[in-house]
């Protein structure tokens, strides 16, 4: 019955669930809000499952397409579709939303209904970002998701939350507003269409392409985030509640990278080739420099935030190698980073809930008190460092391999991150988990409970499965990536 509108369900079920939670939940009855949110998130994931089971890996065409006139005055359509690039991201998002709801179960005691509703509504909006095939529809979801995220960081965040929320919002708004002007320009160039796939075939002069390249680069680069517009991320992460950090790292960063594949590469192929050096340079700076910055962090959340930036540098690097291995490597890295960063932020959340500190120096000797947790934490730390057999290895390895034929030195510089990545992650792990119990409060810490084991265990399975056998994922992407690169190879100069 709903076979024709799976994507609509994926978008609107979480949003409606959020509205219901908001309408029925009050601070007096927090339990109801929690259970309703759990039901909504589970249902949201359930309606996304058919995307995976019904996906045809043999075609690069958009699947599950829905199209209806929305604003005929401007030729704007409610146009949805998923391909091998967006489908895994939609699933990832729906899955992470469920984790976030469970993660906030006990921790959030203040305004529970609003907290849960904000995450559910944001989840629906992010699914909309990945599914939209109309420029304005994309923009509406892309901007709309800032509102719940702004509130999440600002209401439930740490001491410096206001600064972080403003910085995050204004940074991202700057990029997207310029992108909006570019979209309107594309509308006129394409003869009055906001259809993204039409834009893929619109001829554009070099000057226009270059200007638009920078506007899109700013819009998506801020979200990725790329050096030097990354500074909002550590602030937002440190101040956000655990759930907010998880969504920020696992999902919103992917929105930026997704924009590269959906907009920049296929719409502006000539400018992309011309300015590839710029993106590659910024990516390598992120990989190397931000990796070093991560090394000296005293705050665990900040450390993981910087490590996220370095990992996302691999993603953008892979995209601009212009070969299937690189693009697929970038995509695998996106999904893998979604799992690993979510898991690491959840781990930090577990510790923070017990000790109310994120400083590395406050910990030490955790393994004596929390052996189960230490084991999970170990796995995710290894995945973050890119250990083979974990998902973190696959993407980075593919990108490095893809870079070798382009330029050996790109590959060489990128590969140094395998060393720095191992250094900052494992050093942090050592200081937090091993050694003597330095802090008397650590003595009082209890090991993780069943709820936390469920959360971390699920992610551990995902990380290992992807690391051992990534083929199902790359199969899904392959046709779309090859088609995309064929597009990028064609010049669009008139």
């Amino acid at each position, binding site marked *: 019955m709903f076979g024709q509108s799976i994507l609509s369900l994926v978008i609107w079920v979480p949003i409606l669930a959020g509205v219901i939670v908001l309408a029925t939940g009050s601070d007096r009855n927090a339990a109801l809000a929690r259970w309703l949110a759990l039901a909504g998130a589970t249902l949201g994931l359930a309606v996304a499952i058919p995307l995976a089971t019904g996906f045809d890996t043999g075609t690069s065409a958009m699947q599950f397409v829905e199209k209806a006139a*929305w*604003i*005929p*005055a*401007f030729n704007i359509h409610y146009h949805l579709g998923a391909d091998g690039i967006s489908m895994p991201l939609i699933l990832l998002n729906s899955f992470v939303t469920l984790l976030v709801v469970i993660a906030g179960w006990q921790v959030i005691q203040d*305004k529970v209904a*609003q907290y849960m509703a904000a995450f559910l509504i944001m989840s629906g909006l992010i699914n909309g970002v990945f599914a939209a095939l109309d420029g*304005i529809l994309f*923009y*509406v979801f892309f*901007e*709309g998701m*800032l*509102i719940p995220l*702004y*509130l999440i960081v*600002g*209401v439930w965040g740490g001491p410096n*939350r*206001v600064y972080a*929320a*403003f910085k995050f*919002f*204004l940074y991202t*708004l*700057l990029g997207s*507003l*310029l992108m*909006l*002007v570019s979209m*309107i*320009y594309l*509308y*006129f160039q394409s003869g009055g269409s906001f259809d993204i796939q039409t834009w893929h075939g619109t001829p554009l002069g070099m000057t226009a392409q270059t200007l638009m390249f920078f506007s899109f680069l700013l819009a998506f680069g801020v979200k990725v985030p790329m050096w030097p517009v990354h500074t909002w991320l550590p602030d937002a992460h440190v101040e956000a509640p655990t759930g907010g950090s998880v969504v920020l790292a696992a999902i919103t960063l992917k929105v930026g990278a997704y924009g590269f594949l959906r907009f920049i590469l296929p719409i502006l192929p000539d400018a992309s080739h011309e300015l590839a050096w710029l993106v590659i340079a910024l990516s390598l700076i992120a990989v190397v420099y931000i990796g070093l910055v991560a090394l000296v962090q005293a705050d665990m959340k900040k450390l993981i935030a910087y490590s996220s930036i370095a990992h996302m540098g691999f993603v953008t690097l892979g995209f601009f190698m212009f070969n299937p291995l690189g693009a697929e490597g970038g995509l695998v890295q996106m999904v893998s980073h979604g799992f690993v960063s979510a898991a690491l932020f959840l781990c930090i959340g577990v510790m923070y809930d017990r000790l109310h500190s994120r400083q590395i120096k406050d910990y030490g000797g955790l393994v004596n008190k929390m052996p189960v947790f230490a084991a999970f934490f170990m796995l995710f730390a290894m995945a973050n460092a890119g250990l083979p057999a974990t998902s973190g290895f696959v993407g980075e390895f593919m990108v490095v391999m893809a870079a070798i034929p382009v330029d050996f030195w790109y590959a060489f510089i990128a590969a140094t991150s395998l060393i720095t990545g191992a250094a900052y992650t494992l050093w942090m792990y050592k200081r937090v988990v091993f050694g003597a119990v330095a802090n008397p409060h650590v003595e009082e810490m209890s090991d993780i409970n069943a709820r936390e084991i469920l959360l971390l265990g699920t992610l551990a399975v995902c990380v290992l499965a992807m690391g051992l056998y990534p083929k199902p994922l790359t199969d899904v992407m392959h046709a779309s990536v090859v088609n995309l690169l064929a597009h990028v190879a064609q010049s669009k100069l008139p």
Partner: protein
Amino acid sequence: MRHAIMQFAPVFPEIFVLAMVSLILVVDAAVGHRQRHLAYGLSLLTLAGAAFLTLRGFATAPGLTLGGLFVDDPLSDVLKLFLYLTVAAVMIYSRDYLRERALYKGEFFVLALFALLGMMVMVSASHFLTLYLGLELLSLSLYSMVALHRDSSVATEAAMKYFVLGALASGMLLYGMSMVYGVTGSLGLADMAAALQDGTDLHIPLVFGIVFIVAGLAFKLGVVPFHMWVPDVYEGAPTAMTLFIGSAPKIAAFAFAVRILGQGLEPQVGDWRDMLVILAVLSVALGNVAAIAQSNLKRMFAYSTISHMGFVLLGILAGSQSGYGSAMFYVLAYALMSLGGFGMILLLSRAGFEADQLDDFKGLNRRSPWLAFLMLLLMFSMAGIPPTVGFYAKLAVLQAVVGIGYAWLAVAAVLLSLIGAFYYLRIVKLMYFDAPVDTSPIAASADARVVMSVNGLAILALGIVPQPLMAICIHAIGASF
């Protein structure tokens, strides 16, 4: 005989409003202050009656009447219907506020309806004389409304400023009109456009006249550099009057500008476009930057109005039907947002307390999550963030601007509106992130709460489904030009 009466048919709504104002004046004087709600009820009845008459005589094509002084076209009918709605909302929001401040007088209703009549004449004018007549009727009513709070020195000062500067602007407008009349030999907009179409060798006097007309218009719209009165009047006037000044007259001013520039001086678009570019950029820039420094919400909204009017000008300066349509959409969306913003101040105010400081909104989410949510929608709409109507208003205007090849102007406008996003976000921050300073319950009447809910939800609903309003604007402009 029948023919002679039918010639007045398009003017029935105006005649009805005039008759009712006179009635209210007499009735209120007779029953006195004990039965004030009679005047209130009659005023709302007047608006309903006028809406009925306008709908019944809804024009499908432009029809000139009264010897070419008055035009009844889809544009004017649509705008009039929105004017009735806006004025009705103003009255409902203001009732309790006025009663608590001993301003709940018959004069308020009489002046508001006279102002409405002036606006109705403005949107239906097809002749410099009627345009000016409507404008003055509106302005004189507004001056008196600002001064209605006789014992308040701030309000009196605001009224004086408003009057002096308004009179100056009217003078400029008249001077410009006389120059244009000298060149074209006509005061009627259609004849004027026809004369200009044929070309004139008196180009310099014509441009001279246009400069004065644009300056006068800029005064009335409140755009930079003719904006000085806006913050003082907005802040000084009692909030109910600010609500009135900040909403309905903007719709009329839009019609006024489009009638003069888009209809009468349409052939000279090359002359007035560049003037509007300067005014628009300055307004968006100054409005957004100056608003950041304000701690008084009314004053902040005043600067925000300046920047919004800059956006309206951006739509008008496109000089095309899509441009006028986008400006119309913008001004209607703005009236809705402005109503909500000032209405919220009125709702949170109570006897002896004005909720017009930024701090008064602290922790609103704790005191009333629903009102905080509505205000959140209003703020994001003013900032132009989807999914709210404010986003489509900006989109439409930017599209019109890029359509005439002024992409740089669109870039400048969005960068400046990014600055604006800061102070709208700040209000959301106060409501959601901060703890309340004032924890007293919110004493707003049920009907005002209902109207506020409708107002706020309309912003969201029009943000999700903007097509109906967009179609109305495009149709009204398309069928009237």
